[in-house]
């Protein structure tokens, strides 16, 4: 068995003539925190989509826990322990905030096909969902329909849903984009606690470089669909190309400080 929890081999996907992810071979060790950075359109989200199964690669493999899951449908991957959040908010609009999370908790406990136990009996689910909403700073809004939430609140709901799945691997796609200033640190704390728990493996896409540096054990850089570099945060920050083509001048302080 390999040392890696999650591994991609020569992963490639092509849309028409455009190669969005190109021959990416990438390994992640159990219980590590890896961040993926790269310019807009570099293929980060597409790479996630390939891992979580939303897209099927034109070439290459995805290996999870030593199993080739390249052809596995989305829902099975989730059951295996691969959970993800979405860059563009993706919730159940006409269900209450609580129900959004509750249905995720239910999914994690595998209780979907039960017909003859009234859902109200699933108090456990509801309690767990409330805990998660509190964690994501959505307590007090559990009765709202998800579509009525403000943008930032939807992002929090997105995270709560992901946490509800209790996945081994969390794929987080810009979780804090649009979240308000004061709450970003709190959400970061939640993510950090996942890392610190030593139970989870986290893969994070994020443009907020200071956040990435503070959290990550390792960094990977995607550029034009290719895996440009992989290494410790310090190593990557020294990379010329990353400096000039991705960061620009704005984050000089973050990098140097």
């Amino acid at each position, binding site marked *: 068995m390999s040392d890696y929890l999650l591994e991609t081999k020569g992963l490639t996907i092509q*849309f028409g003539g*455009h190669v969005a992810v190109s021959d990416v071979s990438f390994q992640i060790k159990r219980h590590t925190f890896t961040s993926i950075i*790269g*310019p*807009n*359109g*570099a293929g*980060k*989200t*597409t790479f996630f989509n390939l891992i979580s199964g939303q897209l099927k690669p034109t070439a290459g493999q995805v290996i999870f826990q030593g199993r080739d899951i390249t052809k596995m449908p989305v829902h099975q991957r989730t059951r295996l322990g691969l959970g993800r959040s979405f*860059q*563009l*908010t993706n919730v159940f609009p006409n269900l209450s905030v609580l129900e959004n999370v509750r249905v995720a908790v239910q999914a994690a406990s595998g209780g979907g096909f039960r017909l003859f136990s009234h859902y109200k009996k699933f108090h456990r689910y509801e309690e767990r969902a409330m805990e998660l909403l509190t964690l994501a700073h959505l307590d007090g809004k559990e009765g709202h329909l998800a579509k*009525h*939430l*403000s*943008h*930032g*609140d939807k992002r*929090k709901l997105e995270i709560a849903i992901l946490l509800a799945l209790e996945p081994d691997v969390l794929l987080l*796609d*810009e979780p804090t*984009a*649009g*979240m*308000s*200033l*004061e*709450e970003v640190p709190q959400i970061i704390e939640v993510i950090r606690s996942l890392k610190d728990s030593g139970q989870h493996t986290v893969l994070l896409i994020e*443009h907020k*470089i200071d956040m990435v540096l503070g959290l990550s054990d390792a960094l990977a850089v995607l550029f034009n669909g290719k895996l440009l570099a992989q290494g410790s945060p310090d190593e990557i920050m020294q990379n010329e190309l990353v400096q000039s*083509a*991705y*960061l*620009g*001048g*704005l*984050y000089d302080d973050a990098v140097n400080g």
Partner: protein
Amino acid sequence: MTTLLTVKGIQTFIGQYHILQGVDLEVEQGRVTLILGRNGAGKTTTLRSIMGLTPAKQGQIVFDGEEIQTLKPHLIAQKGIGYVPEDQGVFSDLTVEENMKLAIRKLDDATRARQDFVLDLFPDLKIAWKRKGGNLSGGQKQMLSIARAFVNDNRLLLIDEPSKGLAPIVVEKVMESILELKKRTTIVLVEQNFLMASGVGDDVFILDDGHTVYRGSMADVRSDEAVKKKYLGIGL
């Protein structure tokens, strides 16, 4: 200094919910006015009310001396107000080209020049010109949305969280272009990225729970730790 846009005590309802309960803004010509506040404070709803998308039930919105709170959105837009919504509002079935074509109000030389300018600003769009809006990356959608607003000769731009999803270097470019645009147009900006906001903002309004709770200059806010802590949760 002239005031281009005045928002006076607007109250907005969505369905039965009372969302804005008295929002005031004064937007000076040629300046960047920031609207800040927590998630759910009502920033987006304020911009939508100005655009006429969620019309204000009470209060006044005066643009260039004319009350516009009762006008339909397309008429408001035709007055020269551009809008970058927080969810990008990119049409996923249309190509980037068609998205741009739809946005362009009048195709003249000046517009073509502005189109060249935005395509230089966001070369990604040039590459993705024939791609469907729905297939763009998150950041590319954000670029397209900004580009659609920049391409017209607008007198006022309402921009809702432009930095969201953009790579740092692009954020920087957007900031620069905003500073550049400021010379010919007026900008109202909602932004959570304080680094960016403080880099371009002139005046600041802070909303909380559907009310305007603070107004001042950027310099004031930057130096006023109490305000920052109370409304923005930044304890530096």
